[in-house]
């Protein structure tokens, strides 16, 4: 009788631990999302102060990563989770790495924004970066939503979205090369634009990774480096 009470108690505490962990990952996701959207806003509005602010705030993301990482190790060591719980922990450990990288890229974009703000601004005020940025921000948001809802459909859709982001990046890169050939004086500025686009494209890749971890978490199936056909969403058992 007493033993079963104790068991119940332990598993309830365990549930709470896991739930807290998941919430923390989503808090970190929210922070990273807001960092990204502010970095993009800094580029578009030419606000160097905002850009530097983003760069300064990256430490918050890093701190969260360390906290969550420690918590994961603690749960692994003390609870020895199995099956779904284990997959969740493994997925979380990978997810926070990707989130932290996204934070780094956002920091980079913020820093570049402050540099770009000091240079001449093109007439379209970086519309192509704004488009790519909002595309990537949507991807990241959908990835975190898929993580929160354990929604494989949404995750798969987001994974497919990455191809379009890659295409957009290609287009921007080509455009940048044209600019540089036309006017060598603009090379310094356009190089920075290329770096921003590159960072955004990387963020898209990280978001895609997070979606793959979601699929792994739900189905226990590793879909990395495979071609995505429509039957991927079905559980193979």
């Amino acid at each position, binding site marked *: 009788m007493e033993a079963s009470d104790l068991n119940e108690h332990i598993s309830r505490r365990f549930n709470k631990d896991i739930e807290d962990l998941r*919430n923390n990952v*989503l*808090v970190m*996701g*929210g*922070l990273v999302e807001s960092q990204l959207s502010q970095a993009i806003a800094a580029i578009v509005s030419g606000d160097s102060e*905002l850009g530097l*602010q983003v760069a300064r705030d990256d430490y918050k993301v890093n701190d969260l990563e360390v906290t969550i990482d420690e918590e994961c190790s603690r749960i692994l060591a003390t609870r020895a989770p199995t099956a779904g719980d284990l997959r969740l922990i493994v997925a979380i450990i990978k997810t926070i790495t990707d989130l932290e990288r996204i934070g780094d890229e956002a920091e980079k974009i913020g820093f570049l924004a402050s540099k770009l703000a000091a240079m001449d601004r093109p007439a379209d005020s970086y519309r192509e970066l704004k488009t790519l940025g909002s595309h990537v921000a949507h991807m990241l948001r959908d990835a975190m939503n898929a993580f929160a*809802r354990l929604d494989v459909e949404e995750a798969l859709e987001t994974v497919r979205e990455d191809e379009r982001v890659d295409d957009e990046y290609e287009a921007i890169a080509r455009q940048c090369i044209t600019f540089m050939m036309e006017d060598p004086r603009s090379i310094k500025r356009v190089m920075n634009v290329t770096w921003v686009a590159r960072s955004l494209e990387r963020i898209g890749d990280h978001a895609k990774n997070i979606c793959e971890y979601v699929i792994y978490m739900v189905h226990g199936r590793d879909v990395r480096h495979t071609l995505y056909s429509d039957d991927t969403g079905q559980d193979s058992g």
Partner: protein
Amino acid sequence: MSESARKFVVGMILFLSAGAVVGWLYDEVVMGLLVAALIALAWQASRLLSFERALRTGNFEQFRVGEGIWEQIFSRFRFERERAVRRKKNYRMLLREIRKSTNAMPDGAVILDANNEIIACNRAAKELAGLKRKKDRGQRVDNILRDPELIRLLQSGDHKSTIEMMSPVRDGEWLDCRVVPYGGDQKLLLLRDVTERIRLSKMRRDFVANASHELRSPLTVINGYLDSLIDDESIPATWQKPVAQMRRQAARMRQILSEMLELSRLESAGAVKSDEPVDVPELLESCRQAFEGHSKVANVTIDAQSTAELRANKAEIETVIVNLLSNAIRYTPEDGEITMTWRSDGEGADLIVADTGEGIDPEYIPRLTERFFRVDKSRGRDDGGIGLGLAIVKHVLARHDAELVVTSESGHGSEFRCRFPAERVVVEPPVPLAGGA
């Protein structure tokens, strides 16, 4: 006891008595009673069984008419059931109406339990914030709406303030969020689309900033020529006075523009970055000296009750003091008193500018910090005020996490108190070692 129940009891007694009488005829009273009781029991049992069957099959044909106890039970049963059905239908209709009206609401509403888990949400919440009605039930709302500001609002338990966050669904749209407690420990998260308001206020800010900026260059030219005209001996005497007046007014315009630019700069900048410890009493003294020597100035005294320093942007705090002091001087007669106080306690520090001037009507106090607001439209134009001073004060204080408290009594003077939070106050400034230079 109802009619049918009485009939039932009487019938039962009569039947049993008849059994007893028949038994008595045969000299077996007990046997007769027993047989009658058994017959009655068998008959009632068969009715009971057929009632149960009727309940099961829904065929109440044999109970529909008649006066017996079973028919009465049936009619009572049918009555209650129909009433329940009717009531249920009413509730369902009411519920549907409520559902319809909450769905028609333009503002999003999400019902949360004590752990911020979603219980229900309306259609607007779905559209504004991308919540999914079925899938997100039981999910914590801050797992879906992950804006750091919103998370802070939910955790703070603050039911008064609102925050603005970007719509997670539609780009460039803004939502105003607010948490309202209701029921036991449930909460209502209200979301409102404020894109238009934000766009308008941004437009206004941009307009003010651009207009002031654009007006400044022509004004500089005018000012320059007027400055040289005033020194020109050759202009006719009749023009000397108009030129002097033009110069005064042009200078005033320049001042208005620079204050408007200052205000828009304060508005667009975030929180103060450069924090230096500011010696407030010293700043008060230097501001007082700046006004010394002006004619018709009331007596200004400084009451430094604290040596605490303020972590702030010195230039901005100076602007605050100058604005408050010049206001006080403007509205205080020559024989009045102006006191500037600096004091601190455990929870923060106060910078107070009090005067014995004409005071402010209480109904105007909430509007004092509006731009270009004037208590008395007829005055103030000629004495140099333009109505931006307190707006600037308010913005500077907001940037320093401080607030402005105005108390005033008409005819007896006013008090402007700037309340700084404890985080901004350095209680013990580093004291030089005794014996040091």
